[in-house]
């Protein structure tokens, strides 16, 4: 920044009251030193804003001009004196304090107080014509008494005041005690008061001039005065009124008539005032919006005031500076707690500053050309010891006329400025401005804006000739614009990048960026693209690339640039000629847009293992000229690598890799087989890479990986399409990637059928025949065929079932599943196996049969040998298990009426009933009873023919009757199990003898009553009316004791009878008696015989035991025929 445009620091600093302390000897006098230090050292913020300085008592202050009585003949020579602010800040004090050591009780009071007075005099005289306040401070050793008590003090103080012509208010006592700081602060406040008074009067004085001014001649004075007032108000720390006056000043500046010669002066001062206004708004009055609007107007009003065409650069330099300064203020305000927003923050202003800096540079560059052979004027028109007015030209100070007096001087001056300008390092300024802008944008979610600035920065570095930096910066920027698909921008950046990569001979960056710049998306003139491609191709063949030139439109080449080309060529030469071999540079396509494009599709969504999998790879190049691809490599998720080599002449199809004509779609079909362990897997493309260049030269590997999904909104993969269908021409976009396919087993070519005659019966060894027939085509051997039959039982079912291959060892086996290794099978060979299952309960058994095998096949691909593929199938089937027949058994009396109680020793009948519900006939091979002898059950008399050998067809039933008696006496209340019976049965005419099944069943239980005597009678089936029939009741004793028996036979209407009606007898153990009766039926039909009753009394020692038991014969009825 040329310094004459910069804001002077006297403007930028915070104006503070200026106060001078005299009479302090800081060097030799410790006391004074401590006082001085107390004033100016470690002033914390709570202390007042004061500028102290310590001067000798006889210091000469700036002389005051003789006050003019009227302005009539006064013509101001400029707007703002460059000395004025400095003067009031650091030269002309508002207060001068005279320090003097004098105690009230000083012995030499008389002389001393006069000396003091003279000191004051000296000061006064040096402030001739100033309204500067003078104050006296007496440094005293002793602490003063409270006022009013020390008469001497009062009286002497008065004396001193009069001697010094000092008002009592201006006389201070500074007892030098330990509370020094306290006293100092009090003094400070007092001084501050005085200074305020001073500056107020000053301000008022300046204001007073107004009356004398007239608009014609004194225009310049209006802004000047307002500025001064504003400034004084700042001194007083009264920002509000300061702002008011600065605003006035600002408007006045604008009222000034401007012409080329005063253009700069006005702009500069205008800038000053604007600065003051913005600063106050931002930092003192917390009115950021006012500041911003003020600045906006400021720029608006001055933007067009560009002054002389020869000094255009100056204007933009000034503008740039205005922005920068404002941005600085803005940032300062923010650092002080102001909060900015995304769309209103310093970043924008720094950016604008940079923008004008650029324009300035452009102007400067235009100048350069014109100033080629100009020399700097002999006597420097810019040289001047002091410039009286801000913004005036050194060679014509104080002149206020429209056209410069001395034209040659003017020319020299301007040229001097121009030459100065050309020396400036503009890029550096621009870069730093951009830098600050970027750092601010970062904080306000403006990454895109930030990016743009980064790019601009890069360009600036380019102009500065720092090509490395360019590459570094721009490379970072590319990503955003690629993802944002801002092709135009990206083209420009990449071009620049490539250009710089060339100049810096940055091999990798050159390769990477050229591959992208050649992409169809990026638009640079066709010829340039051709050049780029040539360069790339050269490079791949390890030859020097052609120089990459930027578009003519682009800002003209810096002078050091031409040389750069030559250096570059050298660099390349050395780099490429070096013996070292270069790595393969790889480029992830996810973060690049190369000129090679790839898509691929599996031809089917599903392949069987024996099938040849076809992966179609579509590629095309979008570079302007034909080019070649040396290798195409696909990596699958199972690790398989498939490649298409350029130099693979064995396959005609592959050789066409060689040449790609632009935009022609090439299809490579990669055929391959997958290994057996791939079954039921999803096969997908993991990575595809295209190798450009040669292994001996240089090469780039373009890598497509992770997601291949197109940007299309519809995620669904569309149906695969064939080149045939599109007849060669088809828009590339219609091809969509199908990156995965499923590998499944080959379909099984074994015929499996299962034969069994359901239902199965409980307990039998049920045969299941498995019949497998191989129909595998053109006599391949189905190798190690295995069939696994397994019972599918839900764990909670308690049905006890198990399998075996031999029914003999069924009972031992507990197998729930059987594996049958069937070995190899030739085509059309058939294997049969029988498996037996046995279960103990009626239920339904579910089976699954899984047959699997392998086979070796010569693949359909040449030179791939045989491949092993497996196939399998499983069949589920169910078997119903039934009980073979229903078994029932019950007890009846001899004449077959069913009973639940039997008498001891009295025979009864057990009926066994077997019935079959099933359609398959069943043979009962043998049947046997097992009576419960321990409880005294035994067979009685002859048995009915057993069930042996009976064959039951469906719904047939067989009955066996067995007479049984129980000869043991039992507790009549509990029932006893008669016994059990066992069947041995088999399916009728079952060829398999081993399939006999034995089955045991329980017989019912009954109650058994014991009796002392048994009565039996042979009663005929019927009698005839009035025909005698004889019935003999035979009594038999069953007990070991003798017993008395009374028999009786009651008469009845239906019969007449003869025989003992009543008799008492004696029955010895085991003895039997017979009583015969002759009955004559008198009525017909079913009649009750005259009741025969026996009551027997056991003979026992004690009477109690002798109980009486009544008994009746079993059958007491008879049918009487007429």
């Amino acid at each position, binding site marked *: 920044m040329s310094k004459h445009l910069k804001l002077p620091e006297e403007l930028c600093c915070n104006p503070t009251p200026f106060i001078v302390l005299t009479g302090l000897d800081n060097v030799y006098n410790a006391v004074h030193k401590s006082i001085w230090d107390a004033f100016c050292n470690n002033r914390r913020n709570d202390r007042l804003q004061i500028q102290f300085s310590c001067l000798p008592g006889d210091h000469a202050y700036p002389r005051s001009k003789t006050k003019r009585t009227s302005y009539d003949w006064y013509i101001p020579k400029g707007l703002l004196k460059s000395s004025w602010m400095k003067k009031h800040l650091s030269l002309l004090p508002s207060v001068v304090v005279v320090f003097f050591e004098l105690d009230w009780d000083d012995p030499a009071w008389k002389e001393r107080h006069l000396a003091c007075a003279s000191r004051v005099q000296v000061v006064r005289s040096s402030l001739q014509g100033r309204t500067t306040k003078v104050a006296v401070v007496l440094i005293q050793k002793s602490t003063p008494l409270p006022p009013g008590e020390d008469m001497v003090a009062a009286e002497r103080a008065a004396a001193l005041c009069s001697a010094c012509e000092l008002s009592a208010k201006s006389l201070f006592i500074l007892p030098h005690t330990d509370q020094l700081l306290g006293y100092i602060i009090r003094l400070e406040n007092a001084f501050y008061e005085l200074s305020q008074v001073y500056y107020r009067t000053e301000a008022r004085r300046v204001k007073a001039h107004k009356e004398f001014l007239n608009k014609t001649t004194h225009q310049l004075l209006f802004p000047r005065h307002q500025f001064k007032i504003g400034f004084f108000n700042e001194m007083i720390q009264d920002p509000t009124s300061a702002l008011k006056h600065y605003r006035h000043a600002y408007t006045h500046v604008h009222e000034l008539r401007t012409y080329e010669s005063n253009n700069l002066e006005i702009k500069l001062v205008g800038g000053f005032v604007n600065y003051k206004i913005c600063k106050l708004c931002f930092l003192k009055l917390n009115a950021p919006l006012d500041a911003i609007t003020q600045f906006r107007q400021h720029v608006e009003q001055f933007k067009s005031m560009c002054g002389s065409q020869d000094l255009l650069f100056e204007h933009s330099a000034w503008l740039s500076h205005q922005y920068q300064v404002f941005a600085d203020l803005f940032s300062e305000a923010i650092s002080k707690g102001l909060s900015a927003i995304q769309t209103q923050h310093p970043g924008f202003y720094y950016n604008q500053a940079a923008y004008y800096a650029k324009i300035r540079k452009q102007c400067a560059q235009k100048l350069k050309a014109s100033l080629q052979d100009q020399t700097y004027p002999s006597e420097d028109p810019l040289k001047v010891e002091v410039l009286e007015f801000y913004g005036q030209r050194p060679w014509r100070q104080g002149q206020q006329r429209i056209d410069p007096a001395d034209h040659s001087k003017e020319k020299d001056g301007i040229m001097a400025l121009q030459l100065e300008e050309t020396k400036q390092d503009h890029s550096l300024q621009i870069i730093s401005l951009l830098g600050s802008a970027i750092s601010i944008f970062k904080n306000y979610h403006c990454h895109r804006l930030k990016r743009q600035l980064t790019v601009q920065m890069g360009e600036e570095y380019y102009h500065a000739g720092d090509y490395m930096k360019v590459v570094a910066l721009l490379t970072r920027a590319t990503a955003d614009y690629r993802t944002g698909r801002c092709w135009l921008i990206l083209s420009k950046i990449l071009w620049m990048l490539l250009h710089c990569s060339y100049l810096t001979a940055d091999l990798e960056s050159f390769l990477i960026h050229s591959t992208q710049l050649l992409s169809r998306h990026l638009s640079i003139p066709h010829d340039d693209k051709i050049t780029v491609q040539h360069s790339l191709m050269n490079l791949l063949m390890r030859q020097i690339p052609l120089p990459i030139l930027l578009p003519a439109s682009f800002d003209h080449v810096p002078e050091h640039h031409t040389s750069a080309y030559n250096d570059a060529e050298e660099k390349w030469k050395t780099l490429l000629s070096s013996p070292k071999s270069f790595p393969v540079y790889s480029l992830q396509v996810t973060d690049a847009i190369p000129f090679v494009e790839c898509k691929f599709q599996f031809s089917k969504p599903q392949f069987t293992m024996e099938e040849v999998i076809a992966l179609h790879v579509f590629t095309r190049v979008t570079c302007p000229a034909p080019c070649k691809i040396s290798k195409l490599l696909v990596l699958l998720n199972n690790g398989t690598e498939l490649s298409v080599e350029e130099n693979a002449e064995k396959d005609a199809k592959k050789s066409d890799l060689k040449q790609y004509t632009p935009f022609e779609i090439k299809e490579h079909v990669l055929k391959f087989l997958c290994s057996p362990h791939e079954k039921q897997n999803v096969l997908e493309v993991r990575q595809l890479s295209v190798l450009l260049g040669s292994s001996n030269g240089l090469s780039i590997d373009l890598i497509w990986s992770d997601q291949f999904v197109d940007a299309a909104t519809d995620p669904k993969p569309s149906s695969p399409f064939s080149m045939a*269908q*599109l*007849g060669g021409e088809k828009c590339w976009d*219609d091809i969509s990637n199908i990156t995965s396919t499923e590998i499944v087993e080959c379909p099984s070519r074994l015929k499996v059928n299962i034969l069994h005659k359901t239902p199965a019966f409980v307990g039998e060894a049920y045969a299941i025949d498995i019949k497998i027939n191989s129909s595998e085509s053109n006599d391949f051997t189905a190798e190690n065929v295995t069939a696994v039959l397994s019972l599918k039982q839900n764990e909670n079912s308690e049905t006890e079932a198990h399998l075996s291959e031999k029914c003999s060892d069924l009972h031992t086996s507990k197998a729930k599943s059987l594996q049958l290794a069937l070995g190899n099978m030739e085509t059309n060979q058939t294997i049969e196996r029988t498996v037996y299952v046995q279960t103990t309960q009626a239920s339904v058994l579910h089976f699954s049969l899984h047959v699997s095998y392998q086979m070796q096949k010569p693949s359909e691909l040449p030179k791939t040998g045989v491949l092993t593929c497996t196939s399998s199938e499983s069949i589920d089937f169910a078997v119903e298990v039934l009980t073979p027949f229903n078994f029932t058994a019950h007890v009846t009396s001899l004449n077959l009426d069913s009973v639940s109680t039997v008498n001891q020793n009295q025979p009864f009948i057990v009926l066994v009933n077997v019935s079959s519900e099933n359609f398959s006939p069943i043979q009962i091979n043998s049947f046997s009873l097992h009576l419960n002898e321990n409880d005294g059950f035994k067979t009685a008399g002859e048995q009915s023919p057993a069930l042996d050998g009976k064959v039951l067809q469906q719904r047939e039933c067989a009955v066996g009757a067995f007479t049984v008696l129980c000869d043991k006496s039992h507790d009549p209340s509990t029932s006893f199990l008669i016994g059990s019976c066992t069947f041995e049965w088999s399916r009728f005419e079952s060829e398999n003898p081993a399939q006999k099944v034995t089955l045991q069943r329980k017989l019912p239980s009954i109650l058994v009553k014991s009796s002392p005597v048994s009565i039996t009678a042979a009663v005929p089936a019927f009698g005839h009316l009035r025909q005698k029939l004889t019935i003999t009741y035979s009594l038999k004793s069953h007990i070991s004791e003798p017993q008395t028996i009374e028999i009786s036979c009651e008469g009845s209407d239906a019969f007449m009878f003869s025989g003992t009606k009543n008799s008492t007898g004696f029955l010895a153990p085991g003895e039997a008696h017979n009583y015969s009766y002759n009955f004559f039926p008198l009525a017909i039909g079913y009649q009750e015989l005259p009741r025969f009753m026996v009551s027997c009394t056991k003979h026992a020692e004690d009477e109690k035991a002798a109980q009486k038991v009544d008994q009746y014969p079993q059958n007491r009825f008879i049918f009487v025929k007429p």
Partner: protein
Amino acid sequence: MSKTTGRAFENKKLVGELFTLTYGALVSQLIKDYEKDEEVNKQLDKMGYNIGVRLVEDFMARSNLGKCQDLRETADVIAKVAFKMYLNITPVVTNWSLANDEFSLILENNPLAEFVELPERHSDLNYANVLCGAIRGALEMLQLEVETWFVKDALKGDATTELRVKFIKKLTDALPAGED
């Protein structure tokens, strides 16, 4: 969910839009499936025929019109009633042949093509060919055999869209079943 209706939509128009858009989807599908535009045209015509065949019944139900006396009347009914009813436009009937057996329907704007811009590579496509089929099918149900084709198509840069209908013969035999 609450039953308060959202903003009022002109359902008729929107159903029309749904129709237009769906038709568009259909056409682009056909273009995917067939190489030649001619085949696409054929397909569209066929579908149009099927639609026409079924539409007649609905048409009769809505507009209880008697039998038309002559082709001129038929033409008017097609233009003023049918097109109005289903596509909400009224084409102009004109360009009668001397024999009065051939006329044109001029569609100043074609609802089917509301948003369509034909790509160059489909210059042979008769985008709205379904209309031809529909008319043919419908008339066939009324024992009129006709031919219909596009003479002009706004999509191809013509000022208007012109549909030509040519009467072939009266069908006496029983209605042919719509080819499915």
